[in-house]
């Protein structure tokens, strides 16, 4: 190897060694630029915002973030609540990730504690594991009903919540192809829903690629719609019969409203395709 080759190698390796830790000036505890009314260091307390800021964002989102998040569980501030509270675990679907009021039956607690019987490893995977005092705070939040507050949302989500009642996220995502059985559909709103408005007219599910013999543009699918325990900002839509391969559309009537009587205004629809039963 020539001397110049060595120099190139050493330069590459030296480039990898540059850099020191930041001084944190102008940043909140999660490394985001401070904004008026937001950020800052907060001690861990038994409310969702504090848990998000002190546990989910700084620790869990090292892996649980983005489209490739393990088990589809995104724990950044914009997704975590909707995908945790009252939503079945992907690893053990008979157990909710967070069962409001019942920490022992919440899969997240079992995973954090490394309880016998969990699938996969204790979280955070590979450690260091959360101190029991931190897990106890999360247990306390769940015991108290696993409430979300507007303050717990990111600034963007909070602004949206103030401006307009709307759908925050759905599972399956709009336009997605699902290669597994779909036992339930999750729709999360940016605020608590007035559940008295839920009925077979305000929430519908239809298959949109019905066989020609059915002579219909869309075939209604019978469903049961519920609000997950402890999570008033989401609905669970369970088909009465298993969804066969095909394309489906969920429609939410514009009359659905939050607890302040703010309505969606216009109908909201999203579609997904089941392609699981080859």
């Amino acid at each position, binding site marked *: *190897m020539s001397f110049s*080759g*060595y120099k190139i*190698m050493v330069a*590459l*390796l*030296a*480039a*990898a*060694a540059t*850099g*020191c*830790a*930041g*001084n*944190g*000036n*102008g*940043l909140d505890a999660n*490394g*985001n*630029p401070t904004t008026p009314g937001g950020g800052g260091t907060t001690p861990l307390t038994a409310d969702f915002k504090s848990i998000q800021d*002190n546990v989910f964002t*700084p*620790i869990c*989102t*090292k*892996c649980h*973030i*983005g*489209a*490739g*998040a*393990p088990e*589809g569980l995104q724990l*950044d501030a*914009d997704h975590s609540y909707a995908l945790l509270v009252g939503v079945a675990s*992907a690893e053990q679907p008979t157990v909710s990730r967070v069962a409001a009021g019942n920490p022992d039956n919440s899969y997240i607690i079992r995973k954090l504690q*490394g309880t*016998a019987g*969990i*699938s*996969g*490893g*204790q979280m955070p*995977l*590979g*450690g*260091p*594991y959360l*101190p029991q005092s931190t897990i106890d705070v999360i247990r306390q939040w769940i015991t108290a009903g696993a409430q979300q507050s507007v303050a717990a949302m*990111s600034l*963007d989500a909070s602004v949206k919540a103030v401006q307009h009642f709307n759908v925050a996220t759905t599972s*399956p*995502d709009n*336009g*997605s*192809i*699902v*290669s597994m059985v779909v036992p339930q559909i999750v729709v999360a709103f940016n605020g608590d829903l007035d559940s008295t408005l839920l009925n077979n007219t305000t929430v519908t599910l239809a298959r949109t690629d019905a066989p020609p013999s059915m002579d219909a543009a869309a075939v209604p699918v019978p469903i049961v719609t519920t609000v997950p325990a402890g999570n008033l900002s989401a609905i669970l839509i369970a088909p009465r019969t298993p969804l066969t391969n095909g394309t489906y559309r969920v429609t939410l009537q514009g009359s659905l409203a939050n607890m302040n009587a703010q309505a969606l205004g216009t109908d909201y629809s999203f579609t997904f395709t089941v392609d699981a039963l080859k």
Partner: protein
Amino acid sequence: MTNRPYRTTLRYLLLPLLLLAFEAHAEPYLAVQTGFKCGQCHVNPTGGGERTVFGNVFAQTQLAATHIDTGGDVWTGEINRFLSIGGDVRADFEYTKVPHTSSTDAFNLEQGRVYASANVIPQRLFIYVDEQVAPDSALNREAYGVYWSANHDWYVKAGQMYLPFGFRLQDQSAFIQIGQTTGINMTAPDRGMEFGVERGHWDAQLAVTNGTAAGPEKDHGKQYSGQLIYVESLWRVGLAANINSAAAGNKSAGGLFAGLRTGPVGWLGQVEVIDDKSLAVGTGRELATLLEANWRIAQGHNLKLTHEYLDPNRNVSNDAQTRYSLVYELTPIQYVQIRTGFRYSDGIPQAPAQHLKLGFVELHGFF
């Protein structure tokens, strides 16, 4: 009766293997120290998991400070011509301390993994399974089939696999591998296909997978991950690229990595940039680097020093994190390794979790 005849037999069995096998792979620092490619010591052409016959021989004769004679029979991982097995068990005692919280210390079973290969057409076609059997319930990590060309200059792999992207480190918490950066590591396999080429000093791999970390596919988007490596005996350099196309937004990453041997020290370096558009606007643009020095003090003794750097958002100043590790690795006898070390993380003052101090003693058994 002395052991001499058995030792002589072992040497006759092992030395030719070592002399004949200079085109190979291993754990990255071992690969750099020896000049091998990863596939020399692992059945997986991109490294990790079950060891080859060469890898097992290397573990007995070159890695261990002392070789305990096992008589005429030598463990090579091969049950017979068509079936081979292997495994890794890691257990440790770990101490952690985060500012403003109580320290923790605990014995942990980090992982127990078993590997099996059915070499249904020896040298050409094998079916491979990597199963994590502990702790807790079992997890399938890899399961795939590989078809090699007749002269072993290309292969096709299909199934569930780890993705090719730069150095595949044993430390899954290294900044260059965590989910916040590429998320490509040995806890996050994906389902799809990989095509690889091995021509002389050149290696190249390209994998096309679902991009869902082995979860169910949710959209039409796919993940493309690949690398191109040039390997000399004293140094190597590679380029890696990854793009995960998803309905929520594309995530892309590019990396440059290099290895160099200077006397008894093997150096690893990797620089990578990430742009994740599935995250909120203004975030998801990371930079991560690794510099690792491995000093082979003597056979069976390795001292590892690493410096890692993470800029979690290139749009924001003053938010960088660093991590330093000092790890001593002793392999007293074949198939047993004792690792002890200390990792010091540094970050912004207002984030205590970024100031983790971690000490550990690990017992690593493998075969």
